[in-house]
Structures are given as structure tokens and as C-alpha cells.
């Protein structure tokens, strides 16, 4: 299945030519989880990235719905 993604914080630096206005589209197997998505993007656990889909931060074990739009974010504790 195809998943459209935007990366925020310092995460986009890992993808050459990344443009925020377009994001990227990746292919994941049906039933793939948030963890699978982060692994595919080679985002390590130490970076503490999280994924929001439909306005909610998802658990790493959550399955990604087909055709989802995912926002990959880094925690910030305040402004």
C-alpha cells in the first residue's frame, strides 16, 4: 500500500531533495505498523520520532491504514 508522508524537525535532512510542500510517498506491505514505517525510513529509536495519523499520535505497534497520510514528528516539550 502507498503511504504519503511528511517529515518534520530534523528528520527530513536524511532524504536528499526532500521538499516539505510535496513530502514523499512510500510503499509498505498491507498491515505494516508504525514501527515498520520508522524502520523503513531508517529512523532510530534514539531519535524518539513519533507518527501522527488523522490528528492522533500512534503507538509503534499500531497498523497503518491503507492510503494513510502520516506526519513523522519529533517531541518538543514546550515553546
Amino acid at each position: 500500500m502507498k503511504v504519503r508522508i511528511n517529515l518534520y524537525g530534523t528528520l527530513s535532512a536524511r532524504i536528499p531533495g526532500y521538499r516539505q510542500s510535496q513530502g514523499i510517498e512510500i510503499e509498505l506491505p498491507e498491515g505494516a505498523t508504525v514501527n515498520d514505517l520508522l524502520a523503513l525510513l531508517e529512523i532510530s529509536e534514539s531519535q524518539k520520532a513519533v507518527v501522527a495519523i488523522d490528528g492522533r499520535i500512534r503507538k509503534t505497534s499500531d497498523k497503518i491504514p491503507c492510503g494513510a497520510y502520516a506526519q513523522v514528528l519529533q517531541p518538543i516539550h514546550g515553546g
Partner: protein
Amino acid sequence: MKFIRVNMSKKNVAVEDVPQEYIGLGGRGLTSIMVNAEVAPKCDPLGPDNKLILAPGLLSGTPLVNTSRISIGAKSPLTGTIKESNAGGTVGADLGHLGITAIVIEGQAPDGELSFLRIDRNAEASLVPAQAYRGMRTYQLVKEIFEIYGESNSVLCIGPAGEYQLASASIQTSDIDGRPCRAAGRGGLGAVMGAKGLKAVIVEQGGESADALADPEAFKEANRTIVKIVKEHPMAGQVMPALGTAGLVAPVNSMGAFPSYNARKGVLEGWEKISGEAMAKLIEERGGNTTHMGCAQCIVHCSNEFVDKDGKYVTSSLEYETIWAAGGMTGIVDLDTIARIDYLCDDIGVDTMNTGVAIAVAMDSGYKEFGDKEAAVEMIEEIAKGSEFGKILGNGPAAVGKHFNNDRVPVVKGQSIAAYDPRAMLGNGVTFATSPMGADHTAGNVVGEYLEQKLDPLNAEGQVEASRNLQIATAAADCTGLCFMAYVALGSPEGGAALLKAINAKFGIQLGPDDVPALGLRVLKAEREFNKKAGFTNQDDRLPRFFYEEPLPPHNTVFTIGDEGLDSTFDF
């Protein structure tokens, strides 16, 4: 360890040893405990009985990184409560270098009289007539101060809004580059300073009379550990230098909790245009600085220098809360306008948050359309002119709501909420409702708990406890002089131990891990006690009605923490 007490009525300056009851206190702990002990709770905040207390943190003036915060305390003319607002820049560290634990401004100058308080590198303090600077904006003021006293000075000052004694007036501090762009913005403390007749505090840099470290070697070791932890922390070491706090625009919109159009929606249309990522890209393209050292001894560099299309300086630093107030709440999705608003607020000396929200309430009342860039800038200029409308705007969102007969005003105890809608981040609503400071994100921000998935922002369970714990931790943090970014990085057991080691090595004491929350509790208790004596009750610890009644898109939820829950926040 000394106090400088300045009596503005008698025009005298006295230096005294720190009284026994205040020894071991710094920053917010000192300002709040002192205000509670020395200020009559029902006094006029703009009268001679209020006191304005400037206190660097416990570690300010030491070699420890990121310790240049200064706390400013008084009874607030905006909220009527006790108030502490802290700022970065350089003045906190400079006062520490002089061994000054606090400056206490008392009394009140005769109407129309204005002074500077000058402190030289020998810690000699004196009042200097400053009539010639009446009405001067802060950037021009600092420029003229440097022409007289030289650039090796730190300045803490007010603009025209402080002189007008407006309830949103800020106290500005100079940054590393000598620009008055750091602010103790909240609570109208600039009005208290204006009412005292004090235009600026000018502190010569390079002082060498800091309090001695009890154990310099242990302190050095603690500093080394803290530097390593801060540098390696994902937020403090990576995201902050890249985007600063503006990096929050994306996460909070993605969670549907970015109060937009005067808190009518939780996602701003076009937020991507004012995100931290967009800001960094624009600054870089124009040749500005996406990362910048704003405060003394900083190793995080979360600051930035926003420039216009010709590469000319506009403001520093464009921050998340300002982007929200001037952009999200007003529907202005244009970074140039937001940066202009930020500059004007610093220059006139008003809180960017209270002012942005006041503009949003005016727009929501039909005075101007949401998204009207020119109107927003013109409204702020009205504050500097001292026009009737400018005074209403400068007194904050509640004053604007009253003027337009609009009760849809997102404030608690008169102070605007911050950039986290209570209906989509329930714990932040608990903090806004119950903080002794009025709505205040710096008093216990729960957003990190949501982003780290420790708590569900829409589920009432655990929100009160999270807010309580963060309010206690923040009250303790605000005593140290450490900035928030470094303090968050030190949240691990290793980081906490290093911070304790630094405090113990400075004072020659043996605090343990339990003493940190105990300090936070002591501060909160003093603040709550002051508010109670001033006439505040649990009924004041509530959000405006519309947060309970009006669902917020996209989650279409309301604030669901009941009164009993709110009243249990401070069950100590």
C-alpha cells in the same frame, strides 16, 4: 550574596546581606517567597506598596552552561495574582557575576519622574535621572544607553507600554548582541516597573565578584556531564538548534490542538507557511541565522535572527508562542508580518502572546477580518501612540473583549492562554486553570508528555496528575536560572544527579533528589497563599465557559476535567 534595595520614593539605594529567611533561594523561589512575605496581597499593583523583584537563578553567574535566566516577580496588574516571569539574555548572568542575589524595587517615584538604575562592575548601584528617555522605544533606548555607557553592558528595560502602565507591558532584556529582544513578557510586569518610575536597569558586564563555589572541582565535573547530556539530547541538541521552539507548529497542528482564529479551530489553514520548517528555510534563503546564541553561556542556540527579503535584521528570536499568537490566533499565515509584529511588541514593550490574542479577540468581535495583516500591525502601533484603542489593546484580551462586549475571550485570571488548546490537550487546560500565575504554558506544559505518548491528550485520566507534577517540577526549575531547554535535557536520572551535584557544589550542601520537588512545592505553596490572601478562591481556577461548551474541530471535543478534578490539582 547581597540584595540591592532601591526605594523609588526616597531615591535611595541600599546594599544589604541576604536576610536569613531568603538564604538558599534564587529565581522564582526567591521572588515568590519574598512577594508573599513582603507585599500586601490586596495592594494596588501599580502603587507604592507593590515590590518589583529581579532575581537571577541559584546557578546564574556560575560557569554552568545555560544559566542566564532572570526571574522577575511582583503582584501582577494583569491577573491580580502573584507573578513570576523569567527572561533570558545576559543580565541574569551579569548580576550573578556581581554576587547580586536580587534587586528589590520599592516605593514609587513622583508622577512623571523617570530613572535608570546603573550598576557598575564593582556592584556599585545608583539612580540616574532618565527624563530624556520618556516614551522611547526599547531598540532606540538600548542604542542610546550603549552610546553613554558603552556596549559592555546588559540592559533590562521597558518601552512606552510600560510607561503607560498597560496590563500587557513586558520587561525586555538585551541579548548577546545587545538587542532588547528577550522578554519577561507575562503578567504586565513592565507596567509595575513603569509605575515605579524606572525605565531601565543597566548592568556593567565583566563583574568578578560572583559568590564563590564551595567545591569548584565537583562543579566542573557536573558542568562537563551537563554539557554532554544537553548536546546529546534529541530536542536540546538537535531540534532546537535547527528550528528553535517554532518546531512545535507542526506537532501541535498535527494533533489538532493549535488554537486558531481566536480558538475556533484546532488546525490553522495554511499552518505549513508559518511552521518552524518554513521559517528556517526562509531565513536560510535570505541569509539570516537559523541558529543563534541569544543568551549568555548558551550551548543550545535555539534562537534565530529573522531577516527581510533584503537580508536586513527584523527580529530575534521568532518563537513558537509568538508565531501562534500573532499568526494562528489572527489567521495571519505570513512570516514577514508575524516577524514584524514580534519586533514591534519587543520595541513597544508588550507581551507578544497577550497582544496577539487581544488582536484575535478584536478580529473575532468583527473589528477587523481574521488574516488582515495591515490591520494587525496598525493595531499594535496604536499601543505606542497611547490612543484610547491602543490602551484597550495594550491591556490585553479581557479588556478588548469587554470593549466589544464579546465574552469569547481565552484567558484565565485575565491572562491569555498559550498555544495549546485545552480541549485537545486537556492537561494544558488544567495548568492554565490552576497555575497561580493565570494561564501560563511555562508553569507546567504537558505537550511533551503527549508527544512522547506518556498520556493521551483527549482522555481525562491522568491529566491532573501530569499537570501537578509538571507544575511542581517547573517551579523548582525556575529557581535554578537554567533555561527550559537544558532543564528538559536533564530529565534523566543521570541529568538530575548532575544538576544536584552542581547545586551542592556551589553551596556546599547535600541536597538529595527529593529536595527538588520539595522546593517546587514550597514555591507553589507561597504563591497559592498569596493569591488566597488577595481574595482568589477555587472558583477562579476555571477556564472560560466556551472551552466547556464549544467543541473544537477537528476532534470536536470540549474540556472535560470537572471542577473537582481541577480543585484536586493542589491537594497539598
